[in-house]
């Protein structure tokens, strides 16, 4: 069972018109951007279900793109997301697509590219501005975009169990506890989501862990994401 915040219900504070199609979409964009880490040069959005049917009227397209550019759900500039993306030379495309039965009707697959790297993030907007990230590249995951709870670290690494053990030791040394680890594997790679407790991990700490732990491909911290 989930652990929702009162402010998931009494919120988010947002620019209209739709909590699921505008605010939730913006949050999925923010998550995708945080997972990709850099500003992408090109973003493609595959819109599934109701997202694909009515995205124009609800400004879902503007909101998704705004989220990828780190705008908040309450930012009046969401309206101008296309112009802002053009100024920043970010290419964008929206394509309605059936992603399959198993996905929530408000789901989008975001493909982010910057010439060197490419990442796919699938997220669903489950109502009232709440979201879930359910797939990152080939890995099935479950990340909740709930108010005030983004202490997670997403780690992509080789399958060898020693790698995670070492990383966890290092994180503990920083005085941060690990509340939960969830793993997902594909071929010989593994994606682990660590839910942290205590304080937020800082960006230099994340970079240090990423650079100096062998077998780790990348680490992304979601702690900077919008908390309401």
């Amino acid at each position, binding site marked *: *069972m*989930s*652990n*929702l*915040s*009162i*402010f*998931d*219900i*009494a*919120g*988010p*504070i*947002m*620019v*209209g*018109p*739709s*909590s*699921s*199609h*505008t*605010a939730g979409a913006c949050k999925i964009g923010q998550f995708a951007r945080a997972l990709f880490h850099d500003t992408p040069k090109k973003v493609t959005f595959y819109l599934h*279900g*109701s997202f694909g*049917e*009515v995205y*124009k*009227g*609800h*400004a879902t397209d503007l909101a998704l793109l705004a989220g990828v550019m780190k705008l908040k759900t*309450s930012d*009046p500039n*969401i*309206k101008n997301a296309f112009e802002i993306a053009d100024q920043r030379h970010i290419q964008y495309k929206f394509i309605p697509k059936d992603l399959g039965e198993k996905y*929530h*009707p*408000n789901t989008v697959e975001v493909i982010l590219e910057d010439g060197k790297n490419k990442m796919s993030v699938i997220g669903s*907007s*489950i*109502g*009232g*501005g*709440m979201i879930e990230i359910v797939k990152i590249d080939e890995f099935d995951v479950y990340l909740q975009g709930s108010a*005030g709870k983004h202490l997670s670290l997403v780690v992509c690494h080789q399958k060898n169990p020693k790698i995670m053990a070492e990383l966890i030791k290092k994180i503990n040394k920083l005085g941060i506890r690990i509340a939960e680890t969830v793993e997902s594997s594909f071929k010989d790679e593994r994606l682990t989501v660590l839910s942290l407790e205590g304080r937020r991990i800082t960006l230099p700490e994340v970079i240090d862990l990423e650079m100096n732990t062998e077998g780790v491909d990348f680490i992304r911290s979601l702690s900077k994401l919008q908390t*309401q």
Partner: protein
Amino acid sequence: MNQFEFHTTEEMLALCHKHKLSIGEVAKRYESERSGKSVSAVRNKMKQTRDVMYEAVRKGIHSTQKSKMGMVGGDAHKMHLALKKMPEMMGNKVTVRAMSYAMAVGEQNASMGRIVAFPTAGGAGVIPGVLFSSAEHFKAGKRKLLNGMFCSSAVGLIIAEGATLSAAKGGCQAEVGAGVAMAAAGLTEMRGGTPDQCFHASAMALKSYLGLACDPLGGLVEVPCIKRNSLGCMVAIGASDMAIAGVKSFIPFDEVVLAMRNIAKIMSPKIRETALGGLAVTKTGNMIKQKLGMKITPMDL
């Protein structure tokens, strides 16, 4: 498990009885425990939320601007003017004002103004409509109004956990229906009703909305959404009056929530926010679709 954790009405009522607290007070402590912030910090956050809602109401009741497609705009203002002509109205001041406030929020939302999605953007008018208008009537202190908002949030959380707040999953019962049930409880708490009375009010309110289609014209959160919010205030106030008068819901709220989930499961996707059924495919609905460059959907009769 945290001391104030709850997922269902049953758990919430047990906490209220054990600690001799109202639903709103339990909700506040739940959030404080969950977030690690003090109760007063949590209360302050709710104050900010309230301020954004007030701002949307204030702007909305004075605006006469039409939305892009010209479907909505200016009705909140009309209802606000009606407050000066009360002898012509059948409802009382509380209800007319509530309807005008609810419309104000809906109209602001439709024009990409700032609102609070409480519980969702589409259903965001009912709670400020009912709670603000009633608070003005009793001259309720800030604390009471905030407690009403916390109580409404707790009811929303129970709906989110037991069923859904997504119209794409459950239709309009999950948006306006949920908003009405939440407002009914919040108002009942503000009037000094017991926690049990609050849930009777929500149960009676939600029962009236089970199965409501989500069928917005052109997929825009405008028609029928805004007027549904407005009229939803009447149901919320009525349900609260019934509960205060001692009327009980025959079916407990938790069971009503499960009924909502069951209906969501068997509801056609055509009336779940896809604009493929109901009002969205009427002659008028299709005209709007055409204007938006969407495919026309023949009405299946």
